[in-house]
């Protein structure tokens, strides 16, 4: 009995030792943690800073007497670019808060004009709780800035700017704690990789739709940064075959969103062993 017990203990010790030594491959958690714990929160902070400037910009536009706010529109478009560049990270706090319906949404110009003509409140709190997504957000702000300022238009634009600024800061604050806690092991690393790649694919698909140059450049840059990294920041490239990285790089360099999306949704997804939009159904086939 003692010999058997010793053998079992020895075997378990060997297995544990071998497991502890680990494989020689790239640890997925080590790859993803810097992305979600450092890079993503930093970029949400940058966006919050840009969005935070919108209130002052709108105030400046309201005080100017020279018509449409082209300078302010440039800042709004910069915010749009930064927001859509974050699309690969539109999960966690963004999904929970439904921020994509607050920060930017396709507008309903007739509805905005109707609200402009009415006397209803247009402060940030009212816009958040009682006004539809198509009458608030950055795209609605661009629409309002396209005409000369008047008190009602100014109030409405200020309300949107304040709301977007608040929301951007709230999301950034939540990502500061959410990001570092997101990946703790290989299982959560795989979940994060699936979310990032899925959202990057969706970002590239969104370029097919009628979007503004600001939005499209954000989507393309964001997908590229999430998968290939930007500057010195590493991304998922260490988990992807070198030839695939080369192919993706050339597709992003050519701003060929369709090809990049196809490579991402097929070769990269396959190499990473992940599945986009997978249900919990069984499978053996």
């Amino acid at each position, binding site marked *: 009995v003692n010999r058997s017990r010793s053998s079992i203990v020895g075997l378990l010790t060997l*297995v*544990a030792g*071998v*497991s*502890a*030594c*680990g*494989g*020689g*491959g*790239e*640890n*997925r958690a080590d790859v993803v943690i810097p992305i979600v714990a450092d890079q993503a929160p930093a970029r949400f902070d940058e966006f919050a800073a840009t969005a935070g400037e919108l209130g002052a910009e709108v105030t400046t536009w309201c005080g100017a007497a020279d018509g449409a706010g082209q300078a302010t529109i440039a800042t709004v478009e910069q915010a749009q670019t930064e927001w859509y560049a974050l699309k690969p990270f539109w999960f966690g706090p963004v999904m929970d808060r439904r921020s994509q319906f607050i920060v930017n949404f396709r507008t309903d110009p007739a509805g905005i004009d109707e609200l402009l003509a009415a006397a209803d409140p247009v402060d940030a709190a009212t816009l958040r709780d009682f006004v539809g997504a198509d009458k608030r957000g950055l795209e609605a702000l661009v629409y309002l800035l396209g005409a000369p300022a008047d008190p009602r238009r100014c109030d409405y634009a200020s309300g949107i700017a304040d709301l977007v600024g608040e929301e951007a800061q709230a999301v950034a604050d939540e990502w500061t704690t959410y990001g570092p806690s997101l990946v703790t*092991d*290989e*299982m959560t*690393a*795989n979940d994060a990789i699936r979310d990032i790649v899925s959202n990057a694919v969706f970002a590239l*698909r969104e370029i*097919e739709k009628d979007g503004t140059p600001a939005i499209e450049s954000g989507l393309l840059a964001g997908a590229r940064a999430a998968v290939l990294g930007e500057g010195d920041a590493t991304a998922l490239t260490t988990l992807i075959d070198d*030839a*695939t990285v080369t*192919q993706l790089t050339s597709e992003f360099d050519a701003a060929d969103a369709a090809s990049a*999306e*196809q*490579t991402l*949704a*097929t*070769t990269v*997804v*396959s*190499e*990473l*062993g*992940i*599945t*986009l*939009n*997978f*249900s*919990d*159904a*069984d*499978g*053996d*086939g």
Partner: protein
Amino acid sequence: MPTATAETTLARPAAALAKAGWTARLWRPVPSSSTTAFRIAFGLLAAFSSARLIWKGWVGEFYLAPTDHLTYPRFEWVRPLPGALMYAHVIVLGLLGLAIAAGWKTRSCAVIFAAGFGYLELIDAALYLNHYWFVTLAAVLLAIVPQPSRERTVPVITVWALRIQVAVVYVFAGLAKLNTDWLVHAQPLRIWLAARTDRPLVGPWLDEPLAAFAMSWAGAAFDLTIVAWLLWPRTRRYAYLAVIGFHVATAALFQIGLFPWVMIALTPIFFSPSWAGRGEAGHALRDRSAVPIARKMTTAALSVLLLVNLGLPLRHLVAPGDVAVNDDGYYLAWRVMVTERVAAVRFEITDPVSGASWSVRPEDVLADWQVSQVTSRPDLILATAHIVAARYDDPVEVRADVWVSINGHPRQRWIDPTIDLAALPRTTPTHEYVL
């Protein structure tokens, strides 16, 4: 009175059997306990499977919720029953499973179960699983083979028919693994294992290429030889331990539902016909197999089933193209987990009158679980194209812009983009539109 030992006759001495013809040999009685154990395990698994369908909410999600189903060609008329009737159908299947397990009118219950289960599988091709086909065939077998007599014996043909049914799964699954990707590139296991480094103990090693190669070769060797090890009495016990180890490992690594447990539960049919003892309950009350005409009909039915079992998995050999690419011969052929395909699918719709064109993606018309299958099976892309076309009042042309990565290879165009899929009959062989 002779003693009932493993696969020895109960009624006649061996010397007499040697002189008997092959028909007599097929019908010599052997203890029925292994057959009964098979029947009980099958019935309980069938009942469990039905209960699982309900408690997981899959009746609603898979059968009732979808606006459109990805039907099989020639079976477009198969539709889910409305609401409560669909649940009732699944409940009845579960009760039939229990009846089979209890040995109550086994053959009748097996016939009805096979038909009802087959109906369930025909509703949506996205739900196709190899082991569902196995369950259907096993139910058909239980309806055909003679049930235990009052003496608690069955003709040995019953035991061998069940053994062959299990053997077919392993052997053809093994043959399907004899390809370059599996043996030379360790694909798709290399991809799948690298994404499973979160598993306890072995996880850190699963992204090692050596692990993928070892498991690829071991898996092929297991599938191709396990039947022989199970048939050889000296290795049978260890072989069954290997069966348990293999299927538990695959269950831990992959999301393959009941398949491992089905195989673990039914593989003991390879043991001696008396392995489960002599005290089994629920044997059939009448044994019609003693009647000569019943013997002929049973033999004929089993022969047909054998041809089906051998013919379907091999049909891809006479189909044009590579089955790993075009799936021509994939269904009902035990090509279990040998190909990883990930596709990006977009349909280009053209109004032939105005010339206007626009894009539609599968997720615009299908549920997520259907989309995940559409992106890996070309026949479902054709089915989806027909669903898309049917969404418009006037005829439209539907072409597919589809790229696929097969077993980790660089993406390639998969479907001929010049073909109007809406104009293709659903029965069109895949090699006619797969590149």
